């Protein structure tokens, strides 16, 4: 009886110790140590071919579902596309005029266009979409010139940013991840906000001014503040509002992404080159004020 009790007590103690070890591990993980990051990159690199191979049946199944869906809605889709085509043709003629005006005005103002260079375009190997993290792995790494912190885009808009780089694969933190915060602005009213992921389907607009009156359907773009993401990249559109919070649907659906591009961010590069984020002012020639400059020196 006593032996059983002591065994039970030991068992409880051992389990508590294991829970404590796990909690310590979580806090160590939160410290974002370089060694752990490198280990994660190595394992991602090592397992990415297997993961890619196992994902193939799911990808094929998804393609079959897509084909069946498109065949079912073919007629409706055709009618919708025809009307959209008509509408786009009208917009195209208007845009051509506006574009030529814009080019002319930019020339007159000597406006410097900040072009972001595409470093690498690669295939999406897998997406881990659990309830704790939303990331994806792509088939390009340090060999291809990819660096940590670089923005990732698709043809529709911003996908996320590179968080770890291995020799032949990289991990991208998606915009919908809870740790993702994107400085953005509302394209119609111009109000700045932070689009924050929630580990769900949508992004939440935070730090939005109380004066701002966003419209449902309004497009959100990156503002370029902070220098991590370049300005003017599509983030998503506002689709709902509840309890005073506005929710944004990201334009690129991570599940439908097969290829993404990693772009260079010239703002980030320039920031790294500078000595500080807000450099100190250089000593300027002082105005000679009688009696004052003597004491300051």
């Amino acid at each position: 009886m006593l032996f059983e009790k002591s065994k039970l007590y030991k068992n409880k103690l051992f389990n508590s110790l294991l829970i404590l070890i796990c909690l310590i591990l979580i806090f160590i993980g939160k410290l974002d140590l370089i060694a752990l990051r490198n280990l994660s990159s190595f394992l991602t690199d090592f397992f990415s071919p297997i993961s890619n191979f196992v994902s193939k049946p799911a990808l094929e199944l998804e393609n079959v579902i897509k084909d069946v869906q498109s065949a079912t809605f073919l007629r409706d889709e055709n009618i919708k596309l025809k009307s959209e085509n008509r509408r786009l043709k009208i917009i195209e003629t208007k845009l051509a005029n506006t574009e030529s005006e814009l080019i002319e005005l930019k020339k007159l103002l000597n406006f410097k266009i900040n072009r972001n260079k595409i470093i690498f375009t690669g295939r999406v190997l897998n997406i881990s979409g659990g309830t704790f993290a939303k990331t994806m792995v792509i088939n390009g790494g340090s060999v291809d010139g990819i660096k940590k912190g670089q923005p990732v885009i698709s043809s529709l808009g911003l996908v996320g940013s590179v968080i770890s780089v291995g020799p032949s694969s990289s991990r991208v933190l998606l915009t919908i991840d809870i740790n993702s915060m994107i400085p953005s602005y509302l394209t119609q009213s111009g109000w700045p906000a932070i689009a924050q992921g929630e580990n769900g389907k949508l992004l939440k607009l935070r730090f939005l001014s109380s004066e701002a009156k966003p419209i449902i359907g309004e497009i959100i773009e990156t503002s370029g503040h902070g220098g991590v993401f370049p300005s003017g990249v599509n983030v998503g559109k506002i689709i709902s509002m509840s309890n005073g919070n506005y929710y944004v649907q990201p334009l690129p659906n991570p599940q439908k992404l097969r290829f993404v591009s990693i772009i260079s961010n010239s703002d980030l590069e320039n920031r790294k080159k500078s000595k500080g984020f807000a450099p100190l002012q250089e000593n300027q020639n002082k105005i000679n004020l009688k009696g004052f400059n003597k004491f300051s020196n």
Partner: protein
Amino acid sequence: MEKYNSEFFFNNLIFTLIILVASFLQISLNFLSFFVISQPYILAIVLFLTIRRVNYELSSILIILYGLLYDLITGGLIGIHSLLFLFLKLFTLNLSISNKILKKYGEWFLFSFSYIISLLIMKVIFVIVNFKFPDIYAVMFNIGTTLLLFPVILFLIDVPKIVLKVFVSK
């Protein structure tokens, strides 16, 4: 002693392979548009079934290592899956209420109980660590799909048994 060691090694090796396959299967599910918000935890189902149905008790340290490996592969917060799997094991085996649930309602209810409690505790820890609230809808979707997938996997495992029974009875 040597025989016992080799048996232990062989069992754990097979279990490691099963866990790895389940991990990659779980990751691949995210390509399906059906699981648009969150993918179900196949890994939790496999772990629960192994704990319940395999004759030897699975080492807790090994469970922590599997969780750690999964976190490193998926790029999540390190240790979070170790704790989730450990809780799943503890709630499945060590609680007196677990046996009552198993006897009264069966395996599916016990899994639902263990999984929901473990995930909710983990979510609380996750909120404390991140200072941010995750999307509740995504968590509910994850719980729902995982619990619905459990009987499907259970049936798939039992299919060979059923087929064998039919052949034997004939």
